[in-house]
């Protein structure tokens, strides 16, 4: 066992929920940098579409899924088309089905009254940080692999930051101008690339990712809207299905 694994094991045996929560906070901190500019931009765009500083946190606090909120705001009219907005939200967030399924083996031993509220906090970032940690702990033989206080520590800051900074964006939007031009937009792919590196198990296992990347990029260039996420993810899964026969 390495030093960090021994430290993890000691945390677990002492069953120190506070330490696990703080470990989650620490894991989420660098990723927070990535969402703040997105939150400000979303709030500013929503304000341009006529949403008030009360309606913006209502959306980002109840829905809490940035991709679908960007898509919805692009399509927002006065009054909004409720079915169109709901349909686009389903499309963009369909990846949550896969994310929840990937998490299921790690959380199925937990009581439902903990799982259902915890899943409300499942966003791209908290899921990726939580799953990566569970996989690392499982590989190191640390039971339980999925640490709920760690996940909450990683997830709550995203929630609070998302709601707070989208509200700030709505209030300050017209003053800030284009926050994208300061380079902060690169924080998001940087975070995702590091997470991908953590999931890397050799080139053969990564072939479906390449399929996803190619199809998503092509779809993004050719088809307007947020279809590229669904198209890329699904074609990667189809590739994984067929490539699994190679073994």
């Amino acid at each position, binding site marked *: 066992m390495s030093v960090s694994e021994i430290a993890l094991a000691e945390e677990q045996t002492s069953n120190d929920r506070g330490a696990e929560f703080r470990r989650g906070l620490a894991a989420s901190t660098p990723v927070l940098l990535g969402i703040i500019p997105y939150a400000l931009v979303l709030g500013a765009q929503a304000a341009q579409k006529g949403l008030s500083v009360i309606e913006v946190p209502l959306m980002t606090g109840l829905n809490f899924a940035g991709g679908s*909120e960007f898509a919805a705001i692009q399509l927002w009219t006065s009054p909004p088309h409720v079915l169109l907005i709901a349909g686009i939200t389903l499309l963009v967030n369909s990846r949550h089905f896969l994310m929840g399924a990937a998490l299921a083996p790690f959380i199925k031993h937990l009581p439902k009254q903990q799982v259902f509220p915890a899943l409300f906090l499942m966003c791209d970032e908290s899921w990726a940080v939580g799953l990566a940690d569970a996989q690392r702990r499982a590989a190191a033989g640390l039971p339980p692999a999925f640490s709920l206080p760690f996940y909450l520590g990683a997830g709550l800051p995203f929630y609070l930051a998302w709601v707070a900074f989208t509200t700030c964006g709505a209030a300050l939007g017209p003053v800030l101008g284009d926050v994208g031009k300061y380079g902060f937009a690169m924080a998001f792919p940087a975070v*995702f690339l590091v997470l991908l590196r953590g999931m890397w198990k050799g080139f053969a296992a990564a072939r479906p990712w390449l399929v996803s990347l190619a199809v998503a990029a092509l779809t993004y260039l050719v088809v307007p809207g947020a279809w590229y996420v669904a198209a890329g993810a699904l074609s990667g899964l189809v590739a994984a299905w067929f490539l699994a026969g190679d073994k």
Partner: protein
Amino acid sequence: MIDPMTVLAILAMAGVTYLTRIGGYVVLRNRALSPRATAVMEAAPGCVLISVIAPDFVSKNQADLAALAITILAATRLSMLPTVVIGVGSAGALGWLIG
């Protein structure tokens, strides 16, 4: 300040989104997956992540593409925080120089 149709649309979004969050867990919680299905589930997180950032790989902005290349290089050898700092720094600097 609060429009009823806006609230309705927001509630519809929130309901749909929460169903997607619990759906994968509810449906797949008690299933034993075949090796093929397991391979698909193992590939799924990476497929979703890379699809979300795919537009950055085909950006029409030269500075952003160069910054992405630097960020990929950083991500292969550094941890989260330095990679984010290098990514944001290179995008900001190259955007100012080239863009």
